[in-house]
């Protein structure tokens, strides 16, 4: 701020240009959000959901539980008062999940460490775990202007 006239200086313009280019690339790489860490893809999210419902369809509760996030397993076992593998297949929850088991994902959205997979009559939410996805909520029904109402969800 204020008025000032720069004193003339000799510029090493070539070196400055290459430094500026490197700095620009570095900043762009960081700000692009991709970084150096490989993130699981939307296709991988869809595969996780498919694998979950395939496990439900063949009544393999433990295999389906392996695809749930730890917080979701914990919440499910607390609510059902039985192991996760049994809780997914028993009672009304088991009936509901089994009825949705034949569906295939229609689309997936990924943002940062979260994903949402849409099926014809279900919505599933996932979170990054290592290099893959784990399901945080499944059996979700839409509620206007409110979070989804999910049959299985974490905290």
């Amino acid at each position, binding site marked *: *701020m*204020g*008025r*000032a006239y720069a004193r*003339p200086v000799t510029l090493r313009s070539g070196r400055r240009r290459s430094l500026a280019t490197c700095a620009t690339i570095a900043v762009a790489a*960081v*700000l*692009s*959000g*991709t*970084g*150096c*860490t490989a993130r699981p893809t939307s296709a991988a999210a869809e595969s996780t959901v498919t694998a979950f419902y395939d496990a439900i369809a063949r009544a393999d509760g433990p295999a389906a539980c392996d695809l749930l*996030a*730890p*917080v*979701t397993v*914990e*919440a499910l076992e607390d609510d059902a008062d039985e192991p996760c593998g049994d809780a997914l297949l028993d009672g009304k929850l088991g009936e509901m999940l089994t009825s949705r088991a034949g569906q295939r994902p229609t689309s997936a*959205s990924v*943002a*940062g*460490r*979260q*994903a*949402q997979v849409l099926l014809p009559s279900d919505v599933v*939410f996932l*979170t990054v*775990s290592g290099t893959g996805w784990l399901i*945080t*909520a499944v059996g*979700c029904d839409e509620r206007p202007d409110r*979070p*989804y109402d*999910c049959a299985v*969800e*974490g*905290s």
Partner: protein
Amino acid sequence: MTSIRTRARENGLSLFFGTIFVAAVVGQAVSGVALFNEEQRSAGLGPITIAEYVTTSAFAVDVTENWQSEFLQFLLYVVATVFFLQRGSPESKPLDDAGRESDEEQKVAEHATPDSPAWARARGWRLRLYSRSLSLVMGTIFVLSWLTQSVTGSVAYSEAQMRDLQDPVTWTEYLQLPDFWSRTFQNWQSEFLAVAAMVILSIYLRERGSPESKPVGTPHTSTGIEG
């Protein structure tokens, strides 16, 4: 050959602000990852490292929402001070000096000196471009950082939405949401207030030795004089 000490002395202003900028970004990353992990734990999810955090859209939007407003502030300040005056402020040109000024005053073309920048010496598109290069660069950085804020903001917003079991949004949907405009306006208001405060306070207050202040003994009514 100029000594390192002399170079440091002659570039102290940029070195000082460059250093505290880096320190502030580090501080933002440290506090930001702590806040992000608080939200992760509240949702029953695992924490991430600071190395992972600085590559997230959550970090990028927090950085760029501030950058865009700073460069908008400088863009508006650089251009507004060409045409607008403020009696008594050292931030203003003298009251009879509004506008782009004469070629002689600006030392361009035939009025340039041997030491003038190359693009100031001859008439043509280079002179026209160079004559507005400060606002053009400030404006470009503003547009790019605001665009980056919008893109990374839509991703960060969608990530938070899905963590809370709600639908994500597209970029165009995000541009219409309160989150984008709230982030934008909360930054703009503080920047504009800062400039207004500087313009007005410098009429009546002094800082001995600073070029941003009038000399201590200068009357309040003196305009466009720096210390």
